[in-house]
């Protein structure tokens, strides 16, 4: 899976978690929580959705890597490179 595809997946997950937010102007370098109404439970939804969709297990100590779109894609790229987008 490419970094572009991973970004699309994260966007899709965010649309489900934050359906009232406009994601069209999301700044990839800026932390999600500075741009969206996300709390810790929402953040866990990102982790859970990745687990459910792609069986990716993200250890708790790695959660800070998912702070922004850019850091999330960078973190996931090596872990998802052999997966197909579903």
């Amino acid at each position, binding site marked *: 899976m490419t970094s572009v595809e991973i970004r699309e997946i994260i966007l899709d997950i965010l649309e*489900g*978690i*934050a*359906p*009232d937010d406009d994601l069209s102007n999301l700044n990839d370098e800026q932390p999600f929580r500075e741009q969206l*109404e996300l709390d810790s*439970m929402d953040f*866990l*939804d990102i982790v*859970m959705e990745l*687990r*459910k969709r792609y069986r990716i*297990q993200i250890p708790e100590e790695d959660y800070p890597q998912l702070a922004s779109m850019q850091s999330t894609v960078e973190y996931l790229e090596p872990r998802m490179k052999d997966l197909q987008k579903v």
Partner: protein
Amino acid sequence: MIASLPNSQRVVITGIGLTSPNGNSLCEFREGLLEGRSGVRDYEIRYVGKTLAGVCTFDDLKYQKRKEVRRGTRAGSVGIYCAREAIEASGLDWANVDPAQVGVYVGVTEHGNVETENEIYEIKGYDYDTKYWSHHHNPRTVANNPAGEISLNLGITGPHYTLGAACAAGNVGLIQGAQMLRLGECEVALAGGVSESIHTFGIFASFRSQGALAEHQDPTKASRPFDRARNGIVVAEGGCICVLETYERAAARGTKIYGELVGYSINSDATDFVLPNPQRQAECVRLALRRAGIAPEQADIVSTHATGTSSGDIQECQALAEVFQGSPRTRFNNTKSYIGHAMGAAGTLELCGNLPAFEDGLCHPTLNVDELDPECQLPGLVTDGPRALDKVTYIVNNSFGMLGINSVVIVKRV
């Protein structure tokens, strides 16, 4: 005796918000009851398949964001809708109400079954690996959830909790609200009941296994308390929340008063898990009448609990026949025949559906009584269209539940 309390201890209803399968406001609901409009329809739920239910159509995005609906529970959304509508109807200047002086008391028959079933269904797709169990499960299933969602939505910082009281819960929520007002625990009580029960297959399956789930080719005919051909309960969702205040406070702000809670009672059968006990039910009604300071013959309308089961309806009729044997003018009706059994919301919905009778003088009938069961032959049972009454002053509302919990609320015209 409640009826002789000072104004600072008298409790009145100043706002009503509701969603029922045949109406999303008191006005719509009342119209439905007077027009004989059923809210029961075909329904399908996992594992059980095709069945019938009372389904609500309120706009859950009227007072919640999509994210809040997703995060919370159906019972929470029902509660929020009803609470907001009740506050609107009460005319309270909400921005200037002290949120610490508001209490939320919500009756529930059950809570958490829907969310638990959903999670088990979800992890079935992951070979029941609990790593896939949602972190939302606990906040969704804690017993205070529906009341808590109301407090979160409205910024209420006074007490909030639910009252687990089986199908007596709607009355019990009101009673709790009244008691907390009298104790000075709050100045405004949001009290009533909610139900999300049509979203749990377990309740349908359990009633079916018990031989108590209604079936009928015409959904609108399925809920038929007191009729010889009744064959069980139609499960419904719904909610009804009342704004309760002391008479003193309500009169000071000159607001409309829907009625005064002048009598109530709760007791227990202590005899069986599911079978009712007419003797205890009669005792419960008598206790409420005594507290209201009225004789049975002063009751204008008795809103029955009857659910359409073979035994329950007869037991309640035995209790009522005994208490009201010298009350030829008392009329009896049943609201489940329109909307099914709204479980935790039933008591409050059925009471509030009758309250407009103080103004229009009409007792809505029981639907679907094509052939009255001789064992349900209450002399004052209204079945053929709305009955015009001279003047309605007292309405008695029965609400009973499993494990033998009985509750009665009496509301007086003000």
